[in-house]
């Protein structure tokens, strides 16, 4: 503690004020002084919000001594090392014009970094004028570090998944080399790539869910979805957030449908063929259901394939099982039609358009 004579008039006045608080609100002042949450009071009547009270937790959080803090402008002290944006957020919090609590990265006196969330509340006198501000700090450093670590691990996991898929691709191509037709190798590679794209999307969204439109765009991009010269796709529907399992399934299914269309269906002739993908979400007594339709037209006349390949097996049995839905795949002469009716996942539900 500084000597009595070193103290500024301001500090003495502040201490006198605290002393009067103590008389009226004894246990509360003691609680404020000793709580593990860092707290300060600032003077609202002076420019720069000088600090008139700082508890022990504030001092250990910031690494400052009490005499370095008292009388010091809050903004000046706390803006040290903070970026201009953070500084503006603090100012807004003091003016009461901010609707969120600033989360700010600061430097301690020794230069080390800590993250805090700051809650600023005005203290009013009997007349309703703001005389002080009360600011409390929640230390977010550990939370931020854990979040960073989780992000790092998730990136590693995504990276390893994609590398493993690349190794699977390499093994398959080496194994099949000279033994299988090029067509078989291409089909295999196409499926691995579709799976990898779905994993890439999921990784980007922290495995929390993926937009149906993103899945469609990623998977159909090599089939000319974005090709502006010939519009062969029409995609229509409000976006839906798919849970991870559904996203992987849809990626594989769209890949199979498009591959089949490129070989035999609407994408196999020069430009006349078209694929319409449309979906709607409808309320039912059992909750919301999505009805999605893939419809080909303008391709060569369709005939029912003799043998059930991987694609139609995946769609016929795999899809219904994975999505808990009803699936139909019809080889109508005018074009393949695939219809999927499935419950819309509750969590996440809709995504912003």
């Amino acid at each position, binding site marked *: 503690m500084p000597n009595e004579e070193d103290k500024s008039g301001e500090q003495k006045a502040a201490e006198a004020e605290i002393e009067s608080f103590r008389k009226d609100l004894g246990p509360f002042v003691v609680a404020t002084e000793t709580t593990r949450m860092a707290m300060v009071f600032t003077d609202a009547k002076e420019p720069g919000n000088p600090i008139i009270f700082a508890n022990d937790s504030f001092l250990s959080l910031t690494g400052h001594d009490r005499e370095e803090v008292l009388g010091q402008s809050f903004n000046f002290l706390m803006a040290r090392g903070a970026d201009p944006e953070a500084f503006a957020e603090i100012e807004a919090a003091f003016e009461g014009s901010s609707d969120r609590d600033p989360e700010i990265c600061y430097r301690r006196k020794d230069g080390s970094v800590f993250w805090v969330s700051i809650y600023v509340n005005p203290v009013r006198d009997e007349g309703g004028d703001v005389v002080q501000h009360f600011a409390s700090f929640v230390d977010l450093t550990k939370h931020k570090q854990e979040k960073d670590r989780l992000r790092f691990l998730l990136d590693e996991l995504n990276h390893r*998944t*994609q*590398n493993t898929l690349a190794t*699977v691709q*390499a093994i398959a191509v080496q194994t099949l*080399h000279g033994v299988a037709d090029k067509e078989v190798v291409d089909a295999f*590679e196409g499926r691995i*790539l579709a799976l*990898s794209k779905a994993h890439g999307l999921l990784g980007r969204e922290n495995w929390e869910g993926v937009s149906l439109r993103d899945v469609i765009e990623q998977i159909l991009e090599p089939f000319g979805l974005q090709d502006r010269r010939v519009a062969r796709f029409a995609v229509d529907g409000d976006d839906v957030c798919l849970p991870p399992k559904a996203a992987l399934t849809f990626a594989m299914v769209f890949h199979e449908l498009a591959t089949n269309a490129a070989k035999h269906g609407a994408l196999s002739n020069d430009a006349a063929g078209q694929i319409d993908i449309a979906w709607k979400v409808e309320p039912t007594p059992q909750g919301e259901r999505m009805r999605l339709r893939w419809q080909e037209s303008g391709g060569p006349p369709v005939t029912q394939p003799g043998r059930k390949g991987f694609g139609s097996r995946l769609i016929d049995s795999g899809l219904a099982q994975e999505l808990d839905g009803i699936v139909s795949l019809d080889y109508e002469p005018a074009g393949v039609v695939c219809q999927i009716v499935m419950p819309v996942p509750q969590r996440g539900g809709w995504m912003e358009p």
Partner: protein
Amino acid sequence: MTSPLSGRRVLVVEDETMVAWLLKDMLADLGCAVVGPATHVNQALAMLDAETIDAAVLDINLNGQKSYPVADALAARGVPFVFSTGYNKDSLPNSYQSFPVLQKPFDRLKLGDTLAKLLTPKEPGV
């Protein structure tokens, strides 16, 4: 018309043996002559000094070591290259964001298109 890729010497920098084989085969299918694979940074830099190289496919993570020194050396020599990675493109540092990236596993068509773009001489004024 001959492919812009035929006979071009492409350096493969990749630390995983099987993935390197795959890349070599894919590049050979595209008509390229493969140099490497180099499995670490110093080996890649030595190959750059010793060999004539027209382009490179550069894995970002080589046994935990980043391949950016190789990228810098290639850029300094004016040799075009494409990164290959299992990470998202976003994870590249800003200074390398302008270089093309191939995602693993590899899409042969994209590999061919990307290299063809890199090896096609730019028309003046375009």
